[in-house]
C-alpha cells in the first residue's frame, strides 16, 4: 500500500451532500478488474454528458483542478454501497485524501486500505475551505498526517485520526500482516469460543 505522510496538492470542492458510492462509480463498472484501473469511471454519470463530453459545470473538469489530489466534499460522503471501487476510482484518478464533515462508514474504512486519508472536520470548517477554494481555484492545501493538520496559507485546521490507522498509513503497512502478529491470540480465542458455542462451527 502507498505510504501517506504529507501531501501538498490542489484541492477541488464538491458540494454535494449524501454523495453516494453509486454516484462516485456507477454499478455497471464494478465488473472491472483492479489492474484495468477505475480512474476514468470516477463520477462518470455526472462528469460527462450524454455524448461523453466533459460537463463544464462539474468541478473536476475545470482546468484549475486538473491536478487535484484532495477532494473537499460534503456531509455523508461515500454513503450507500460498500463498493471499494469508489475508493479505487478516486485513487486511480490521482486523489489521496478526502475532507468532509462526515462519511459513509464502509467508504471511510475502505479509504485506509488503499492509502487514502479521509479527514473529518466540522461542517463550518469544511464549508469555509470549500468557499476559499471556490474563490481561488487551483490553490493547494497541505495535509500533514503526522501532526494531523490541514493547512491553507496561514490557516490551520486540526483533525483526529485513529492511532492504528494513522500508523498503517504512515508506514504503508498491510493490516493482514499486522493481524497475523496476533495469530496465537486468534487461535486461543477460537478454541475457547468453540468450546463454549459448539453449535456455531
Amino acid at each position, binding site marked *: 500500500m502507498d505510504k501517506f505522510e504529507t501531501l501538498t496538492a490542489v484541492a477541488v470542492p464538491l458540494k454535494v451532500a449524501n454523495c453516494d458510492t453509486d454516484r462516485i462509480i456507477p454499478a455497471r463498472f464494478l465488473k472491472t478488474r483492479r489492474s484495468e484501473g477505475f480512474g476514468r469511471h470516477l463520477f462518470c454519470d455526472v462528469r460527462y454528458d450524454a455524448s461523453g463530453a466533459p460537463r463544464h459545470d462539474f468541478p473536476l473538469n475545470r482546468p484549475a483542478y486538473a491536478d487535484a489530489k484532495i477532494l473537499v466534499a460534503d456531509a455523508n460522503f461515500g454513503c450507500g454501497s460498500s463498493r471499494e471501487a469508489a475508493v479505487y476510482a478516486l485513487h486511480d484518478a490521482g486523489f489521496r485524501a478526502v475532507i468532509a464533515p462526515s462519511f459513509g462508514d464502509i467508504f471511510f474504512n475502505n479509504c485506509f486500505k488503499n492509502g487514502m486519508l479521509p479527514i473529518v472536520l466540522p461542517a463550518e470548517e469544511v464549508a469555509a475551505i470549500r468557499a476559499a477554494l471556490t474563490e481561488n481555484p487551483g490553490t493547494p492545501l497541505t495535509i500533514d498526517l503526522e501532526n494531523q493538520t490541514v493547512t491553507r496559507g496561514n490557516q490551520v485546521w486540526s483533525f483526529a485520526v485513529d492511532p492504528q490507522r494513522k500508523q498503517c498509513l504512515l508506514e504503508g503497512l498491510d493490516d493482514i500482516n499486522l*493481524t497475523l502478529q496476533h495469530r496465537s491470540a486468534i487461535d486461543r480465542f477460537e478454541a475457547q469460543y468453540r468450546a463454549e*458455542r459448539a453449535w456455531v462451527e
Partner: protein
Amino acid sequence: MADALPAHPRTIIDKIWDSHVITEQNGETLLYVDRHLLHDGSFHAFDGLKAEGRRVLRPAQALATPDHYVPTTGRRHGIPVADYRNLVEGLVANTAASGITHFGMDDPRQGIVHIVGPEQGFTQPGIVLVCGDSHTSTHGALGALAFGIGASEVKHVLATQSIWQRRPKTMRIAVEGRLPEGLGGKDVILAIIGQISAAGASGHAVEYCGPAIRALSMEGRLTVCNMSIEAGARAGLIAPDDTTFAYLAGRPYAPVGKAWDAALAHWRSLPTDAGATYDRSVTIDVSGLAPMVTWGTSPEDAAPIDGRVPDPSAIADAARRESKIRALEYMGLKPGTPLSEIEVDRVFIGSCTNGRIEDLRVAAAIARGRKARVPTLVVPGSGLVRQQAEAEGLDRIFADAGFEWREPGCSMCLGTNGDTIAAGMRAASTSNRNFEGRQGKGGRTHLMSPAMAAAAAVTGRFTDFRRLGPS
C-alpha cells in the same frame, strides 16, 4: 421471584461485541468473525489473496452464492455476457480452490446472499456476520451483529477470520403503536429513515425494538434491518424472540438436539438488560401510518401515499434545499403533485429488501385477477423462494396478470447483470436505493413495499393498495 438486575446492564449490541473481542490495540478491536458470506462481486478479495500468496483460514465458516451478475432469464443457456460469466465462474473456481461451500447457478439454494443466509439458518443470533455488501445489515433481524465491509476487509476476513473495528455507538429505535393492516416492514423502515435522515444513524449500531417490531414477521424484520445502512447505521438488529427461534428451527445450518438446546439458552441471554443505556434513542409511532413511497434520490425522501411531492423552497438550510431541488429535477417531478398522480413505466418486485416468500404472497394477492399496465418484473430472492412460490401457484397468478416471473438474483435493484431501466423511465421498486442512476443511467426509482409496487403495476400509477377496487 424477579431476577436480580445485572450489576452492569448491557445492550444486545454490547453483549455480542464483548463476546467476540480477540484483542484490542490503540482503540481498535480485533473482532472474531463467526460467519462470512461471499458472492460473485467478491472477486477483488480472492484476486488479492492469490496475489499475496495467502490462503483462506476457515473455509467452513464461509458460504458463497452468485447473485449480482447472474441472469434472471434464459439461464439454461448459460451467461451470454462474457464479463458476467467470468465473475460467476470465478466464484466457482475460487470457492472450490479454498474449500468454501458454494451454491451455484443451477443449485436451487442459489440466491441473493442476504436471502440465502437466513433461509439456510447460516445466520444465527449472537454471531458476528460480515459480507462484502452493504445490505449485510439484513442479518441483524435474527439478532446477529452483521455489517457490510469492503473488498480489502473481505480479503482480511478470509485470511484471518477476524476484522479490526472501532466499537460502534449504540442507538435504540423504538417503534411504538400498531402498524395498520396490510402495512409492513418496508413502510416502517421508510418512515424511520424519513424521520431520522439518511445519515441519522451514522456511526451507530441500531437496535430496533418496541411493539410494532415484535409484531413483525421474520420477513418484515429482515426488510427493516436490511435498510439500516440507508440511515447510515453500521448495523441494525432485533433481539431474538420466539418468532426468531421458530423461524430458525429445522433450517439446514441450525443446530439440532442438544446443540439446539445449548444454542437456545445462549440466544435467550442476548436481549438487552433492563437498565442498559444507549448513546441515542429515537421513538416513532406507526399507528396511523400510510403506505410509504419515496419521491427523491435518497431513501430519506419518503412520504405517505396520501401526501404530495414536497416543496424544497420551504427548506431553510441552503445546502439541503439545493440538494432536494436537484433531486426533483432529476426525478422530473413538480412540488405539490399528489403522489397518487405519478405514473410509472416499470415495476420491479424483488431484491434483498423484498424478495422473500411473504413479499411475493403480498404482491400476488394484489395481482390476482388484475392485469399489469406496465412491464413488471418479479424476481424471487432465491431458488428456494422461487420453488415455494411455484408450489403455492404464485407464478401462475403473476403470469395471468402479465407480470414476468424470473430466476433469482439482485437483478434490477442495481442492474449489474444487465436488468436495468432506460434513462428517463420511472420505476416503482421494492428495492432499497433510489440514488441517481441506481437502476440504470438516468433511471428514476421510487421505493415502496411489494403491495404498493404491485398496485402500481396494475394501475400504472402510485396507488394506495387498500383503495384498489374489486379485482
